[in-house]
């Protein structure tokens, strides 16, 4: 099998990740912060270690303000619904995934005014286009760092600067960039990301980082193992956002995934294999590749006169795994002009080798008759 759907979730995972998951389930098993016995304390320690490793990777100054969620969607929802209220304005971009788009739609139903900054045909959001939408009612700017459709990378640092100068908060979706390209989140307000994509962890893991000085309301309310006599959620992090038992086995495995990313220097390899695939796809006559060459690992293609889902089905017969359709980002497809056709998305990962790409593209050429 040639797995080229790493933008959905990375596969395979490093051995250390699966080993850590198994070890937690078979040897530790305790709930962190819920007891005083050794394995519960060790479990809490492991959560802390994972926060520290993520902080190291993303240059986050306060590891304790990294909270674990079940995925990036939950992290984004927690940040959005915890920040904006009726009467506020939120600015999102036209390249957002439905994790933000649908949350913003729900916000508008609750009386929040939603503004959309439109991207270029390559999927790039100009920071100025966001700046032009800011008013004194703008509470939050939400921007995807890298498109899950075409991999285009946005300038989050300039947008953060604009937000800070406008006394507005910024939230960045790093789902397609964390662990894929270098990121310095030290000056960012809030970032959300998956644990199971570039960070190589298992599905069921995600994170939200909230810098000191910002305090969104929690999305969930419940037991945290701290301040138990109070009916209110604790103010301390990460407890404030850790209502209920966390996915400790998943976080133990995620910790090893992050260590793998830190140790193996994955950025160069990711860039090399993606550029190789981008160039090879661009060379196939009759195939269009929207977006810019400088990108993260998502490469969408259109093959005129061929249904993208049909091509993905045919590739599946050749044991090549790719994703076809709108990739849960319809406005992104409108932005790059592919809403009618959808696209076939090829996304390589750290473990993808050039012969894998050659095989997949050879199969594609046969299907489209090139």
């Amino acid at each position, binding site marked *: 099998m040639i797995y080229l759907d790493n933008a959905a979730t990375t596969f395979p995972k490093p051995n250390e990740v699966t080993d850590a998951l198994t070890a937690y389930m078979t040897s530790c098993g305790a709930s962190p912060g819920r007891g005083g016995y050794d394995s519960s304390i060790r479990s809490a*320690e492991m959560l802390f270690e994972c926060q520290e490793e993520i902080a190291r990777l993303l240059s986050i100054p306060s590891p304790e303000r990294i909270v674990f969620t079940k995925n990036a969607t939950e992290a984004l929802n927690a940040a959005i619904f915890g920040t904006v209220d009726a009467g506020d304005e939120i600015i999102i971009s036209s390249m957002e995934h439905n994790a933000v788009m649908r949350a913003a739609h729900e916000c508008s139903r609750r009386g929040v005014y939603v503004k959309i900054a439109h991207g270029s045909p390559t999927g790039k959001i100009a920071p100025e286009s966001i700046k032009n939408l800011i008013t004194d009612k703008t509470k939050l700017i939400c921007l995807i760092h890298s498109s899950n459709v075409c991999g285009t990378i946005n300038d989050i640092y300039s947008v953060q600067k604009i937000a800070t100068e406008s006394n507005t908060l910024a939230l960045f979706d790093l789902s397609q960039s964390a662990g894929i390209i270098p990121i310095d989140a030290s000056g960012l307000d809030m970032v959300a990301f998956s644990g199971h994509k570039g960070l190589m962890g298992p599905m069921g893991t995600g994170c939200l980082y909230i810098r000191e000085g910002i305090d969104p309301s929690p999305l969930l309310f419940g037991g945290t193992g*701290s301040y138990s006599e109070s009916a209110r959620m604790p103010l301390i992090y990460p407890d404030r956002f850790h209502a209920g038992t966390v996915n400790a086995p998943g976080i133990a495995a995620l910790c090893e995934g992050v260590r793998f990313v830190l140790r193996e220097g994955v950025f160069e390899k990711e860039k090399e294999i993606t550029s190789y695939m981008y160039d090879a796809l661009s060379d196939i006559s009759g195939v269009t590749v929207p977006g810019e060459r400088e990108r993260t690992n998502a490469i969408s293609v259109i093959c005129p006169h061929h249904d993208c889902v049909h091509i993905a089905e045919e590739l599946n017969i050749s044991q090549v795994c790719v994703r076809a359709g709108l990739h849960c980002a319809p406005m992104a497809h409108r932005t790059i002009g592919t809403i009618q056709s959808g696209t076939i998305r090829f996304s390589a990962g750290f473990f993808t080798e050039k012969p894998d790409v050659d095989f997949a593209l050879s199969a594609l050429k046969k299907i489209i008759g090139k």
Partner: protein
Amino acid sequence: MLATVASVSSANRLRLALLKQDVPSRVIQTPSSLTKEGCGYSIRFPDEYKPFVKKTAASLNINIRSFFREETNNSQTTYFKE
């Protein structure tokens, strides 16, 4: 001696910072007789390190609720607030 803190994550942060400075310590669940807000965690460490623990916690912005000296007689532990 016990230093009581709000959560297990604060306790772990403090313990690891102390460990890096070769201060022996251990995270334990705070005895229920000492916690007014339930389910707290504490750091247990030798009494002589109290000023050091206090300083390290302050540098990490960790709020130590109280320090308790422990005395055990006939398997009965008594805690004295410092």
